[in-house]
């Protein structure tokens, strides 16, 4: 890293023992058409100068709201209705507009969550950095060099040239670096980072957080890090504040919270955090399930065969470049693997590695350019409509976005009944009892069947999607990032459910994910994909304990908090 500029703010005299930011008994209320909603109650938080404090909680726990209140950026219908926010000895609970504008940028910086939407697409990156400097009277005469320097500090290579580019020419990680540069451009004493890396791949996340760490510790900036990932929080912060339903339930030294959580919610959170777990989930089978299991096991041992074999699979997309010209883009390159019946194989890779394309080809929703997929001894390419229809009964997908995978017009009953109806199974009465049974399988009350998807939470919708996938008694389920969009606790619940169902029904899973931590919990075998190729294919234990390729090693190292529990 190059030389760092020390800004004027660091030179200000400050009392080392006085908290930089102190929030006491904060209450925030949103007025909605359905009446007031108490988003935060009893918010309490102390940030000492130079300290990193992480606020951890699931979505809707009030963690972002608490932090936004500190810089007066609550949405229009939100109001601080109680408590105090003190910044460097000054009460800013209800500041004047003038005062809070003066504080923003120069004293309190902000790094927003979504790098894709937080840069203005019509202005060059450099202009957007300069804007911040100007607003705080720091642009000066040599503004161009200053902008380049600020961007270089945030780890953007070739910063002077990059400053002349537009946001769409940047990758997600580069945009996040630009946002960090903007947040730190005026040398604030406090930086609020709201899920700064949640939208990024793990390796990029690690680089960016490492860089942020180095920068803030050299500049002496205090950081409030908002995150849903307990492992990441424990690794990056001295202090953790756990929020649940708008209240602070526990706060204290990071490692202590992680190792000796006291509040039951924190205990639950620590137990569920995938990045901290170290072994494959084992469900406690009930007696009935055990019987089935025993039967299945016997069968399973006899037919220990590959249910799915993928050989030399390649997919080339044509990317149009104007009239008549097109470039070839190889999304999947010579991929071969096989999946044993009753086991889980995970395909891991970062965005753009081609893992979802593999899933779509296995599902027969996309035609491969070359290569073959063999399912239960039958080659699937060039199947007749009729064969394909039968194949659909045996292989089912579960998609990532629980909000998109259920038809909002269909009631839950119709959604789960649809596959039975399509394949003409049973009559109205038997279908109804089957739907009930399926809901029971995914631990949802049977009264849910009269409801509609918009009345359910993300995790509940994902269970319905699982019930629908199970309706036809398939042998293989392809989970395309099936738990990525869910909160940690809900994610753990769904993973447990998938695991339980696998043991009860002898299902085979092909699990597509970007999250190695989840892989360890659910998979028996792992394929690591990079740029359309499989770079490593082995058992889960082997991949985690003895990774062969450099890429896998990088991925493993990037799992936040992996080493903290030891």
């Amino acid at each position, binding site marked *: 890293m190059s*030389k760092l500029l020390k800004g004027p703010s660091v030179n200000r005299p400050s009392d080392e023992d006085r908290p930089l930011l102190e929030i006491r008994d904060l209450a925030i209320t949103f007025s909605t058409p359905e009446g007031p909603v108490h988003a935060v109650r009893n918010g309490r938080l102390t940030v000492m100068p130079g300290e990193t404090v992480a606020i951890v909680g699931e979505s809707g726990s009030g963690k972002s709201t608490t932090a936004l209140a500190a810089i007066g950026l609550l949405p229009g219908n939100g109001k601080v209705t109680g408590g105090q926010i003190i910044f460097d000895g000054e009460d800013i609970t209800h500041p004047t507009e003038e005062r809070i504008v003066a504080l923003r940028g120069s004293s309190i910086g902000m790094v927003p969550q979504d790098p894709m939407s937080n840069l203005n697409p019509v202005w060059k990156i450099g202009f957007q950095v300069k804007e911040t400097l100007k607003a705080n009277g720091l642009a000066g005469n040599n503004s161009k060099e200053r902008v380049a320097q600020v961007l270089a500090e945030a780890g953007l290579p070739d910063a002077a040239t990059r400053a002349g580019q537009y946001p769409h020419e940047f990758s997600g990680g580069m945009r996040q670096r630009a946002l960090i540069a903007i947040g730190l451009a005026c040398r604030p004493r406090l930086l609020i980072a709201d899920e700064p890396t949640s939208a990024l791949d793990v390796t990029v996340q690690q680089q960016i957080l490492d860089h942020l760490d180095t920068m803030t510790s050299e500049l002496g900036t205090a950081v409030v890090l908002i995150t849903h990932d307990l492992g990441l929080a424990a690794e990056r912060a001295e202090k953790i504040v756990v929020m649940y339903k708008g*209240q602070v339930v526990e706060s204290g030294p990071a490692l202590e919270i992680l190792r000796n959580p006291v509040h039951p919610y924190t205990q639950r959170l620590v137990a569920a955090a995938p990045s901290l777990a170290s072994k494959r989930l084992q469900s406690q089978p009930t007696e009935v399930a055990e019987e089935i299991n025993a039967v299945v096991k016997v069968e399973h041992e006899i037919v220990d065969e590959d249910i799915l074999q993928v050989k030399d699979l390649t997919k080339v997309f044509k990317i149009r470049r104007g009239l008549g010209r097109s470039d070839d883009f190889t999304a999947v390159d010579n991929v071969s693997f096989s999946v044993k019946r009753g086991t889980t194989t995970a395909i891991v890779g970062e965005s753009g590695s081609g893992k979802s394309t593999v899933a779509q080809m296995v599902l027969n929703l996309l035609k491969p350019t070359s290569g073959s997929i063999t399912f239960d001894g039958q080659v699937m390419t060039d199947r007749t409509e009729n064969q394909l*229809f039968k194949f659909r009964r045996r292989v089912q997908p579960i998609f990532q976005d629980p909000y998109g995978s259920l038809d909002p017009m269909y009631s839950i009953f119709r959604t789960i009944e649809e596959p039975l109806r399509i394949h003409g199974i049973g009559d109205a009465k038997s279908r109804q009892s089957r739907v009930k049974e399926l809901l029971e399988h995914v631990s949802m009350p049977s009264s849910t069947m009269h409801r509609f998807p918009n009345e359910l939470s993300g995790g509940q919708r994902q269970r319905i999607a699982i019930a629908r996938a199970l309706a036809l008694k398939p042998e293989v389920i392809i989970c395309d990032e099936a738990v990525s969009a869910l909160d940690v606790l809900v994610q753990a619940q769904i993973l447990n459910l998938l695991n339980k169902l696998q043991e009860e029904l002898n299902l085979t899973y092909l699990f597509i994910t970007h999250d190695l931590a989840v892989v360890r919990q659910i998979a028996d075998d792992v394929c690591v994909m990079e740029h359309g190729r499989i770079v490593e294919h082995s058992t889960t234990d082997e991949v985690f304990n003895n990774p062969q390729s450099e890429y896998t090693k990088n991925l493993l190292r990037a799992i936040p908090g992996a080493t903290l529990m030891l």
Partner: protein
Amino acid sequence: MSENPTPEIIEPVAPAPKVRAGKISSRHIEHYVAPLAETPLQSVDKVDETAEPLSMWAQAWRSLRIQPLFIISALLIILVILVAVFPGLFAKADPTFCKLDFARQGPSAGHPLGYTFQGCDIYARVIYGAKASVLVGLFTTIAVLIVGGTFGALAGYYGGWLDAVLARITDIFFALPLILGAIIIMQLPAFRENKSIWTVIITLAIFGWPQMARITRGAVIEAKSADYVMASRSLGLSKFKTLVKHVVPNSLAPIIVIATISLGIYIVAEATLSFLGLGLPPSIMSWGNDIANAQISLRNNPAILMWPALALSVTVLSFIMLGDAVRDALDPKSRKG
């Protein structure tokens, strides 16, 4: 603005090998635990079984029925429809009984709005004229929905050459002004000799369907990329059935909004054509014809023209208001999830 402070350069310390063992603060940090009674732990992701199940349509209806805009426009539309279906209930006088003795006379008992230039009862004519307007509006909308909706849905869903052809055809229709196009079509011998409500409906539908096709196409394209469509395909539902069962129902909201607003616009278009003498034959009572006939007495007796014009405006306005209210209720952005 003050001169930029000269930056002080710090030499960076050699990057220490990154030990990611967590940070330990030198300061004492209090370990605070909230009393459990304050935030009782709830079970993870529980289904709320108390609320009444509501479909999307039911939710839209709930938000719609309390909107003043909707209540006013719906009451007006019901009134207009009642008048169109049972004109006899509202007007006792015979609209076709015209006596030149009464020409341009003011209001009198039993004839609240007075008489036209031809000595006909204005009130009765306004009441009986509603039927033609409502019929034209309704049937044109139905025709446009069937033709435009079908083409738009197929083009949006299947794409390819069908989409390309449709796009060019709609472009051609968009380039033709409605009135100019209608004048030409209504002058065709087949239409000129059989002037009736149906010829007007056909003419308006010919120029109305491309807009509906475009709206439907857009909505279908948006809906077809949803995951639930892919889920249904992988359940084994055929491509066409997926269109009918999942894509079209999910594209209906913007189509309903546009159809409601267009209904009002078609009523205006009919009145315009009739005013120009191209629409309904004089034998059919309609607001457009009456407005045209009242032209000559506009300077002396503006009331003769005003009443049918007012009826027309209120009817059209109420359909457009209804469309706005429905749009608010169906707008997916205003609803959670």
